[in-house]
């Protein structure tokens, strides 16, 4: 980002490349570290190894055809990419999405949030050397993936939403299965906590580590769980309501220094654990209060929105995911731009990391829950 070559001024430091192939960089990121012993004196995150020019592709693809690409922005929470893009186009077109479709979107999104956070907490445990919690999380995730498969036909790259709603209704009987899973899931989290969250070694590794003060978090543009764990009570679902979220009751989880301080790695971890339970609550409310009606608004086959620009944002599992869309009245957007939480999370690294140890860096990096493709897009 800043300077690519770290200077070894005193001959006391070692330059180490962490990545692009490293087990705990969660994808293809290169972190150049300047080490003094095991203490990091300087960090230089180098991104761009996973650039797939999705934004450029958007300018070359018709509006409906770009939808599958939005899955790939953040492959762990593809639903939010879908949603933010659909919301942007719908706003351009001025289409009203049916209420049932909004509910279905919320259900899918919140299930996706559970999936994504399960991976986040699991990989974080794995970064700290505990392998089993990861697979326990994966086990629950597979169950949710099965539901996703039944909702939209795919397990990872959902391509579920369409401009104007969702393509199809819930399969009969699926809502009961999901409710049954939620009952189990709410018991699984305490077990998971007993296994890893409450583990003294785990707690000691994380508390008071890499504290991001609220001011820093805001100035670095952090969003989502990373921001909330610093004590900033900000959630797009509540503060900039979209979709059907105003109709549900849920708590915005903020880091409160349950152990250690607000804004440390443990707070970030804990916010995710709590948010999963909140998501489960939302899914439950949505399933029980599912309104009747259409699932897709009438949209012309050939979508040519009027000239204009629009920015839509959703609360993705990695923070605010925004989509900025400029239309010139043609079949293809003039400009597509995604704002993602992982990219801004990377900016906090040079500020916080110097002074930490290598082992802390993996924990900190895990707690930021960065997904490499989302950084580069």
């Amino acid at each position, binding site marked *: 980002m800043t300077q690519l070559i770290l200077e070894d001024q005193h001959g006391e430091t070692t330059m180490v490349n962490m990545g692009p192939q490293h087990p705990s960089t969660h994808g293809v990121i290169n972190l150049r570290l300047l080490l003094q012993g095991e203490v990091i004196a300087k960090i230089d995150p180098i991104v761009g190894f996973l650039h797939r020019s999705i934004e450029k592709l958007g300018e070359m693809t018709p509006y409906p055809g770009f939808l599958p690409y939005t899955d790939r922005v953040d492959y762990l929470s593809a639903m939010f990419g879908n949603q933010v893009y659909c919301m942007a186009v719908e706003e351009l077109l001025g289409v009203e999405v049916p209420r049932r479709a909004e509910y279905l979107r919320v259900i899918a999104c919140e299930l996706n949030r559970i999936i994504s956070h399960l991976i986040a907490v699991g990989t974080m445990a794995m970064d700290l*050397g505990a392998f089993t919690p990861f*697979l326990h999380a994966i086990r629950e995730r597979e169950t949710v993936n099965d539901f996703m498969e039944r909702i939209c036909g795919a397990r990872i790259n959902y391509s579920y939403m369409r401009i104007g709603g969702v393509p199809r209704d819930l399969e009969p009987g699926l809502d009961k299965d999901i409710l049954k899973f939620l009952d*189990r899931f709410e018991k699984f989290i305490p077990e998971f906590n007993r296994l*890893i969250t409450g583990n003294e070694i785990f707690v000691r590794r994380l508390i008071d580590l890499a504290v991001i003060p609220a001011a820093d978090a805001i100035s670095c543009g952090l969003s989502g769980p990373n921001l909330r764990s610093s004590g900033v009570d900000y959630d797009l679902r509540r503060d900039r309501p979209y979709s059907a979220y105003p109709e549900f009751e849920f708590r915005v989880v903020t880091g409160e220094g349950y152990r250690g301080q607000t804004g440390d790695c443990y707070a970030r971890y804990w916010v995710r654990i709590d948010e999963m339970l909140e998501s489960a609550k939302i899914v439950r409310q949505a399933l029980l209060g599912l309104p009747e009606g259409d699932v897709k608004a009438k949209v012309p086959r050939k979508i040519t929105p009027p000239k204009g620009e629009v920015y839509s944002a959703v609360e993705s599992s990695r923070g605010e995911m925004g989509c900025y869309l400029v239309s010139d009245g043609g079949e293809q957007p003039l400009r597509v731009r995604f704002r993602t939480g992982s990219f801004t999370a990377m900016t906090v690294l040079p500020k916080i990391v110097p002074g930490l*140890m*290598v082992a*802390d860096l993996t924990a900190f990096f895990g707690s930021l829950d960065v997904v490499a493709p989302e950084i580069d897009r």
Partner: protein
Amino acid sequence: MKELFFELSQSWQLEPLEMTGAIALWLVVVSAIVLSFVATFAGVTSWVERRVAGRMMSRIGPNRVGPQGFLQWMADGLKCFLKEDVIPNEVDKPLFRFAPYLVFTGTFAAFAALPFGYGIVAADLNIGIFYVTAITALVVIGILMAGWSSNNKWSLLGGVRSAAQIVSYEIPSGLAILSVVVLAGTLNLQAIIAGQGGFPWDWYIFNNPFTLMAFFIFFASILAEGNRTPFDLPEAESELVAGYLTEYSGMRFVFFFFGEWANLWVMSALITTLFLGGWQIPGVADLAGVVAGVQGAAKTLWILLSVVVFFAKTLVLVFVVIWIRWTLPRLRVDQLMVMCWKYFVPFGFLCMMGSALFVLIAQSPLGETVHLVVRLALTGLGGLVLLLFVRRTILNVRELQDPFYFKVLE
């Protein structure tokens, strides 16, 4: 065994030169026996570890090669032996080549003094336990050598971490050993076992509160010395890629892993010997007397029984070590040192002093009864914890409404 050999050789009436040859041959044979045992154990344990880990993670583990995947370790070993031995260009070649053997030697040499049963030991050294702790120091040098010679920064970090860790943790483990040695009054491993009894309250772990403490200290420190989780920082895969193992492949990698799994046996056998009564058969107060009293097949049977008891205890401990590995996260380097110097070392001293105190108490007139009460109480405490544990386990299964499933093999 050795006595048997000398009796035999004397009955053959060999010439001095032939005798030298015979002794050399004997050494080779013993080494071969121990080596084949170590190799088999390391292999089978690698399979067991993967199966156990699999079940703990709600998956199955290797089950395709041979019956239940039992031959997986052979397949893996064969694969590694047939693989190209990659030596990167810029490594320090002589050291890089030599390091795995050093690590393996360090662990393997420890087997010379380890007991396997009553009278079954390759070399019954009178400084047994001290020899074992000393000879495993070679492992440090090997790891340091591997870390340095790999010419890789991650490897070097791993090697340095490992050296610092092993050297530090030798102190608490030594103190914990001393608290047992104070009770036993000997360094000889067979004699330490002979000082215990068959039942749990006769074991040194429940001998007094201090040895109970020493047991935990010893367990943790020996895990740290063997680089097992939660102390596996030298090869922490999420931080240091693979630590000092990063550049190794093929046969040399296998040697490191041989060492690691052999070390698993060494640590379990040591704990069994020092704290869990070794080969003492419950209900047999004086095994030495019993064995001396019988002849022929009965003698062999008794010795075999002691071997079975020893193996059972050791294998349970091996399971525990594996189980801990797949449960706990890893400590950080500074926490590791804090744990050693601020927790283990002071408590280790306390254990040593306390044990010495208890020896004095037990010698006093009323001491015998007090000691018995303490032993029984501690054993009861251990049993209680075990019961609580079983209850917690059952509750864990019930809470998620998973059906109980007792099939071991899948």
